[in-house]
């Protein structure tokens, strides 16, 4: 949505042509207006009043228009500033705090609209008065005496606009269905990935262990080596199975090339974890050439940052796994900055966690074999998303083909 402001012009604005002039000036300066109210004086000496909503494509453009309109006698009807209250304790927001959405949000502070930085759903907004900045802050990071936005007056949330072009990524996408033509959807994803590269925005992959079980590891590895992945989020499972396959050619004991259970293969994953723990970590294992292939090897070799967030049912875990959930969230928060596209493949837990951190402006692609999971992820407030019901390996194979890898 374009930035806008409401202005009032009153007096003998009809006979003096001030009103037509105001409207012309707005258009000459590439702005748009909406007449909210117009009352015209009955007799010659009676004043007339018009209330206009003036919009422009950017905040500076709006300021230019407003400056000109003020010179023509218009007075901006500024919205009130946000209400602020101080946090009484660390990690506790004031009781009436404004709870954020993941949509672009602005607050009115010291008479100007300011974008809320690092927007994320279900957080508070902390205002830094020394720099007049507004920062979206998770509850646990609120410090005592921080100034927190309370109530919703002076807060403006900008809904995402429906694209005029027919796009693969559509606002409030139609229901997920396994019956959709996947080739076109995947071609659309490949196109979006190219656009991200051109716009220098990051591509995030969130992947679950099934990606390795289904034999998709090789394709993800190919994407990483070709530079299509800027950051990887996963858990202990994906990394363990990937390393197991690199060391033993199996995932959970199943031979990935033949699809059969290997003899005594059931403990391969524990041996893989043990080997990496012995090396000190995945990076060290790659450096010592203990691990020479696979997704994790590709990440280390191509300096693609990865965040492995642990969970309560992890084996081992690998030394690289962040076992403190709050630390993992923070590291993920840092890594999602600059992300324009998120591919969530065969993952529920990590995909939901990531979805919670992403602004709604980030395009998301959810791929899972289970339609229920895709629907669940698509329903979690990520507005510009598409869901693809597919096996992870086939999706990645087709994506690689669409990207000519």
């Amino acid at each position, binding site marked *: 949505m374009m930035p806008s402001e409401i202005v009032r012009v009153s007096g*003998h604005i009809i006979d003096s042509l001030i009103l*037509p002039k105001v409207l012309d000036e707005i258009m000459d300066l590439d702005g748009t207006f909406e007449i909210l109210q117009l009352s015209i004086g009955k007799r010659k000496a009676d*004043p007339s009043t018009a209330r206009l909503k003036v919009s422009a494509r950017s905040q500076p453009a709006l300021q230019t228009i407003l400056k000109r309109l003020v010179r023509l006698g218009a007075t901006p009807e500024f919205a009130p500033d946000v209400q602020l209250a101080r946090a009484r304790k660390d990690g506790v927001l004031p009781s009436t705090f404004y709870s954020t959405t993941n949509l672009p949000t602005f607050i009115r502070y010291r008479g100007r609209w300011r974008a809320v930085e690092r927007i994320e759903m279900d957080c508070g907004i902390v205002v830094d008065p020394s720099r007049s900045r507004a920062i979206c802050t998770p509850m646990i990071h609120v410090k005592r005496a921080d100034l927190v936005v309370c109530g919703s007056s002076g807060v403006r949330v900008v809904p995402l606009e429906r694209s005029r072009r027919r796009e693969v990524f559509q606002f409030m996408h139609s229901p997920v269905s396994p019956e959709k033509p996947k080739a076109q959807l995947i071609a659309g994803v490949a196109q979006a990935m190219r656009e991200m590269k051109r716009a220098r925005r990051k591509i995030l992959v969130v992947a679950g262990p099934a990606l390795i079980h289904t034999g998709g590891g090789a394709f993800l590895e190919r994407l990483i080596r070709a530079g299509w992945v800027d950051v990887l989020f996963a858990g202990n499972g994906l990394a363990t199975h990937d390393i197991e396959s690199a060391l033993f050619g199996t995932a959970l004991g199943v031979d990935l090339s033949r699809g059969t259970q290997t003899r005594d293969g059931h403990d391969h994953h524990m041996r893989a974890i043990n080997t990496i723990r012995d090396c000190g970590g995945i990076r060290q294992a790659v450096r010592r050439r203990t691990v020479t292939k696979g997704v994790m090897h590709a990440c280390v070799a191509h300096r693609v940052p990865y965040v492995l967030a642990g969970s309560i049912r992890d084996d081992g875990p690998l030394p690289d796994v962040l076992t403190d959930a709050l630390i993992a969230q923070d590291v993920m928060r840092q890594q999602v900055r600059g992300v324009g596209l998120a591919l969530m493949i065969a993952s529920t837990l990590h995909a939901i966690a990531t979805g919670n951190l992403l602004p709604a402006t980030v395009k998301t692609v959810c791929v899972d074999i289970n339609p229920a999971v895709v629907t669940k992820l698509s329903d979690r407030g990520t507005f510009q998303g598409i869901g693809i019901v597919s096996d992870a390996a086939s999706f990645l194979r087709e994506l690689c083909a669409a990207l000519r890898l």
Partner: protein
Amino acid sequence: MCRPTHYTIAYEINPWMRLTRQTVQRRAAQQWAQLHRLLTRLGSSVRLLRPVAGWPDLVFTANAGLVAGGTFIRSNFRYPERQGEEPVVERHFRARGYRVVTLPRGCNFEGEGDSLWIGSTLLLGFRFRSDAATHERLSRVLEREVLPVELVDKRFYHLDTCFCPLSTTSALWHPKAFDRYGRKVIERTVAEPIAVTGLDARRFCCNTIVVGRHLVMPRGVSRPLRHRLADGGWVIHEVDLSEFLKAGGAAKCLVLRLA
């Protein structure tokens, strides 16, 4: 009127003023006295404002405010160089029993310099000195229609430098000093507008005092304009006001109409 006892060029707040082009005190006094004499001779009764040292432009009494019956709407000068004149004129009018109306700070208004009656409508020039928003307050005080018109040429920074009502239906004006909206407003409001050329406008022909059928104009009116006015039955009196032109003012700027 106000004697030019302390009149000088002390600052530059319009394109006419040059600190290097100073006034000659004696000549200014003579020119002013000549204007004063002429007005009296034409039957005007002239009241004087006492000059105050330090406020050289007090001589341009047209900018002091606007008189409407027993009400005096005091000016709010845009430039600090002239804001010191405000209490001087305010005291003067209070002492003479006028109801003095002041506008809020930030609502710039330079009196008759920027507001002139055409019939029962007041035209307000804005941009360089007065503010457009002021018109609403003026209309509330005066209970009359007030039409703001935008000035676009810095040399004609006040309405009275480019517009002069001669009667309820006719006026002298320099169209290029207004934008197209302002031109349209004047063309609609004034039945018989008389456009003056750039040359006449630069000689401040629009800065004319109207006394009955007599026009008191600064010297240098072009022949065509003179003929046109004479044909309309106007009697022209030219006065040398060269010393005041140095400050961007002429005949009309030196007087404020009280009745």
